[in-house]
């Protein structure tokens, strides 16, 4: 079987040549980083003022880390390495915890990103003959535009369906004989359950592949999606700080996600000690961009946990493989593909005088979708006795949470003192979703 490949020269590059390329690109990236106020200061602190100070690839370990908080503090332009007029796109986070973050792209940055996504798509065996329905949100969410550009570059017929409206998704799949989709795993399970309601059978579809990502999922979930639709499902990994999708993707062998090492330097570190971990040991993914000029990031701490898959992939690609993401080294929750921090929920509750300080965040599976329940206690002193006021309060908290975390949870009001009391690190989050 011949392995489908988009850019054989890079994807099969000998490790030695790949690492030489990485070092050259790292020096270039540091040169770009030195154009930003943020990194000029950070790099000076470690005595690095010139890209040629980097003698070998191992010297990446002397570079400073970058965290999400750094991105917030540098907002909007502290990490911008080019004149604004050279940029052609930005993706910004909602900034719900106070400060948003932003990643800028030049035309060349978008071009590089698109190339990486094209590699991912072709590695799964999808081709220009496929009809590709992109079921992820367009706009600030990088999964929409990222896959869209890559699929167009491959030459697929792209249906920019965006997320939601399941009835219409199914109709589009039938009308245009969609053969490849991109969605969150939970949405595909939801879509399958909705087929019956639309009077459509799997056999009436022409689906053959799915790209699934944006939320952690188990191997069992992947196999379930494959069995339900009679397709192959390929795991996708990306994050907006590293462009978005196209960071790492499974090839036809589905034995881990090849991370494009000409575009990123990958480190797996112990999240506590920040010491490098040997192959096979699970730690935090830390990445350095190698091709992004507008917003170069050095040693970005993703907080995602994974390990390196040992051995060589039968496909022959020399780019190493990440195992599926196991979780987070911080307390971020992923709810139907949306990132949620418990602190965002806490902020809203603390600004609502009618509820007390105790709360509980509960995550459940309702069908194949996640359900977020926020339980809070009413504050006895502000209780008026009027049931309508309580319904209004629930609605008001629900709306405030929706504007903070972009999803509307179920809000439950409880008696004072009925939720577990906070004692130091209280268990505020109960995840009842099946583990993997």
């Amino acid at each position, binding site marked *: 079987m011949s392995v489908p490949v988009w850019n054989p020269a890079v994807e099969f590059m000998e490790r030695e040549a790949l690492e030489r390329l990485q070092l050259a690109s790292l020096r270039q990236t540091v040169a770009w980083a030195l154009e930003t106020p943020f990194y000029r200061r950070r790099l000076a602190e470690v005595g690095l003022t010139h890209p040629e100070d980097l003698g070998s690839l191992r010297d990446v370990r002397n570079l400073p880390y970058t965290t999400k908080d750094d991105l917030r503090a540098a907002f909007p332009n502290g990490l911008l390495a080019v004149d604004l007029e050279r940029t052609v796109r930005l993706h910004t986070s909602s900034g719900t915890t106070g400060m948003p973050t932003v990643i800028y792209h030049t035309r060349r940055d978008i071009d590089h990103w698109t190339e990486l996504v094209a590699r991912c798509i072709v590695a799964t065996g999808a081709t220009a003959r496929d009809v590709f329905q992109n079921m992820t949100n367009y706009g600030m969410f990088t999964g929409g535009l990222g896959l869209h550009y890559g699929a167009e570059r491959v030459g697929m017929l792209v249906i920019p369906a965006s997320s939601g409206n399941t009835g219409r998704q199914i109709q589009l799949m039938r009308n245009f004989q969609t053969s490849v989709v991109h969605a969150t795993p939970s949405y595909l399970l939801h879509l399958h359950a909705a087929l019956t309601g639309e009077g459509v059978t799997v056999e009436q579809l022409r689906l053959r592949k799915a790209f699934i990502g944006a939320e952690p999922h188990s191997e069992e979930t992947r196999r379930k999606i494959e069995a339900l639709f009679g397709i192959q499902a390929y795991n996708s990994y990306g994050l907006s700080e590293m462009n978005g999708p196209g960071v790492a993707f499974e090839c036809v062998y589905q034995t881990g996600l090849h991370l494009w090492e000409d575009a990123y330097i990958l480190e797996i570190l112990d999240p506590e000690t920040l010491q490098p971990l040997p192959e096979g040991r699970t730690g935090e993914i830390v990445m350095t961009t190698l091709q992004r000029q507008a917003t170069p990031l050095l040693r970005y701490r993703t907080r995602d946990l994974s390990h390196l898959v040992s051995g060589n992939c039968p496909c022959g690609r020399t780019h190493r493989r990440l195992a599926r993401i196991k979780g987070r080294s911080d307390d971020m929750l992923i709810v139907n593909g949306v990132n949620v921090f418990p602190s965002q929920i806490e902020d809203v509750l603390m600004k609502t005088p009618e509820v007390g300080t105790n709360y509980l965040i509960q995550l459940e599976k309702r069908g194949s979708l996640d359900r977020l329940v926020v339980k809070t206690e009413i504050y006895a002193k502000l209780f008026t*006795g009027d049931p309508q006021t309580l319904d209004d309060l629930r609605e008001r908290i629900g709306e405030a949470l929706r504007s903070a975390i972009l999803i509307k949870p179920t809000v439950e009001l409880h008696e004072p003192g009925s939720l577990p009391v906070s004692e130091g690190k209280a268990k505020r989050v109960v995840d009842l979703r099946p583990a993997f």
Partner: protein
Amino acid sequence: MTEQLSVFVDNRPGRLNAVTGILRDHQIDIRAMTIADHRAYGVVKLLVSDPRLAHRALVDQGFAAALKPVLAIAIEDRPGGLHELLEVLAERSINVLDAYGFVIAPGQRAVWCMEVDDPDAAARLIAARGLEVLADHELYRL
């Protein structure tokens, strides 16, 4: 005007009897009781022999409870008795927000309790029609 006691309770087994248990412990009589059910929680509304004491006892035990003035009106327990009262309110466009009633002496006397949007005006109207707005001590002594 009468004071009605409202208590917030989770809708799960054992919560209602936690409320009645506290009232028993303080020798408080329940005159009437109704529950506004809101699925996950309910608001229990009570007329009791000593609303202030009941309120304090419940709050001391951690309950969210509130006192609220309501109108308690003595009406005749016969067909049309309630209708005569409500007609008075309708004529003057006084809106009833929440209400419940109970019989004291079958065939003779009943009490109608209600929250209205203008309690003072309602009380004046009702008194002018010769109906009896019960004061606290009258109600509690029933």
